[in-house]
């Protein structure tokens, strides 16, 4: 084995590459100067300006509502899909089903966006808030399905089988035993779905309509005109929301994991 010096250098460079651009963005959102490259001292004026920018705040509100709704529907659908994939062998046209789960993960967004838009036009639905929710649900559910699926394949089924043997109905067994045990994965899936929806520009651009401008669409239209500290502030706010969410989720997952281990331990010792 080579000395750890080399490995540490590679990792440091790699992580610096990943984090420095984001750090710079956050730092410059507190810049008093309007020029992006000149440091004019610490200031929160861009946050105040952003707060009073009604169009930006409206877009933020739309984005959060879309993200919560589509992540929640997507988590329910994705969890069902994962259960179907792992637990049920006899799915009609199983190949088609799993292909439809995996394909959206890599499908270029321009194709997904355009095809969904054409569907909405073909059936004569007015585009707006709900069409974005449907579009986001469709691609986020596949990510949730993958996350939950990976938990289900390593799942110890003895508790479930015990419940079923003792006469617990399958649906009740699912809610009383299976769901609590896979909950960390379901929560992680929801978080992933929420951020994917929060971030999406391309699919939202195709499927949105009047009155449903999301934050990425708003940011994109302003970025094209140039870099402004106000956009830095909006971006930092988004990063902040996501970071806090990730921290809460990972703490919650850790606690649940701990609880699960304790419960499983209790269950095995009791048995």
């Amino acid at each position: 084995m080579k000395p750890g010096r080399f490995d540490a250098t590679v990792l440091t460079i790699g992580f610096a590459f990943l984090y420095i651009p984001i750090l710079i963005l956050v730092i410059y959102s507190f810049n008093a100067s309007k020029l992006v490259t000149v440091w004019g001292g610490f200031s929160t004026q861009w946050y105040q300006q952003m707060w009073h920018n009604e169009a930006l705040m409206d877009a933020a509100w739309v984005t959060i509502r879309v993200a919560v709704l589509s992540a929640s529907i997507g988590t329910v659908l994705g969890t069902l899909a994962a259960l179907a994939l792992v637990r049920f062998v006899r799915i009609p046209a199983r190949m088609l089903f799993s292909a439809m789960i995996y394909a959206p993960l890599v499908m270029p967004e321009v194709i997904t966006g355009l095809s969904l838009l054409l569907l909405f036009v073909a059936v004569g639905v007015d585009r707006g808030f709900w069409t974005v929710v449907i579009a986001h649900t469709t691609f986020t559910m596949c990510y949730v399905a993958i996350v939950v699926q990976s938990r289900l394949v390593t799942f110890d089924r003895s508790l479930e089988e015990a419940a079923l043997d003792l006469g617990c109905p399958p649906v009740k067994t699912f809610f009383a035993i299976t769901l609590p045990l896979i909950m960390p994965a379901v929560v992680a899936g929801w978080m992933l779905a929420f951020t994917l929806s929060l971030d999406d520009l391309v699919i939202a651009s195709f499927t949105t309509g009047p009155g449903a401008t999301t934050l990425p669409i708003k940011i994109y239209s302003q970025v094209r005109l140039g870099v402004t500290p106000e956009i830095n502030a909006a971006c930092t706010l988004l990063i902040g929301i996501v970071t806090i969410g990730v921290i809460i989720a990972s703490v919650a997952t850790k606690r649940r994991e701990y609880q699960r281990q304790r419960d499983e331990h209790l269950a095995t010792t009791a048995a």
Partner: protein
Amino acid sequence: MSQASATSPGKARWLVVAVPYVWLILFFLMPFVIIVKISLSDTAISMPPYTPVFQGFSTLRDFISQLDFDNYLFLTEDPLYSEAYLSSLRVAVVSTLLLLLVGYPMALCMARANHGIRPTLVMLVILPFWTSFLIRVYAWIGILKPEGLLTLLLQSLHLYGPDEQVQIFRTQTAVYIGIVYSYLPFMVLPLYSALEKLDGTLLEAANDLGCPPWKAFWKITFPLSLPGVIAGSMICFIPITGEFVIPDLLGGAQTLMIGKTLWTEFFGNRDWPLASAVAVILLIVLVIPIVIFQNQQRKAEGGKA
């Protein structure tokens, strides 16, 4: 498996499969049928801006007689489109190789790190992924602009004169930087999960038998990490081919990519049928990599179960 199937009541079981299945057929499969249909129709200046090929379910012969391959013919006649497809594929191939070049050493070092810090390292790779794609690309504009931070850094290090500026923004180089930066987590994670599973005793044995480390890498580590290499490459290659945001924000006039072309046809020229035809051909181009990706995923699923 058989036990659950035997004890599950038909109805609930049926719903578990049917609900996501129907949703995906409605909102994933159906749109592709429609996109093919519209790519075969004429452009019209109306709302929606195309003439439907068939309304309702008329007879099949009627339908076929009305099919119109003009959009596809147009795509083959104008060299702009074939160039855009080729250049997208070129960018995707080069980017994927660059990503392997950057991602592989990172994944390898992560897999060789102490067990204790591995989860932290994985978390550090995943975290930027939680940050908006758009924001991460935007961050690079401020760095790469001629009067941006990179110029400032090079000038303060006296590597550049006060009048010299970095000419990267709005070039192909900027597009590559943006792509490698944005897709790096997607490459590192599959590589890491393949390398982590590697049996360390194999390398020890090679070492004991006098095999030099670099040879051991080529004979043992790399071949065993191939599933990760393929998975990571496909996860990056396919979306990069259709990438829109990065070439649009960081690329220049000479950056020709099909995702951008599609976007312009749709939002700029409002030519929906042509945009659909562009999308259908892009999909055909990507069918092989998508099938490889699917098989890889299914294998991984089967392997774990």
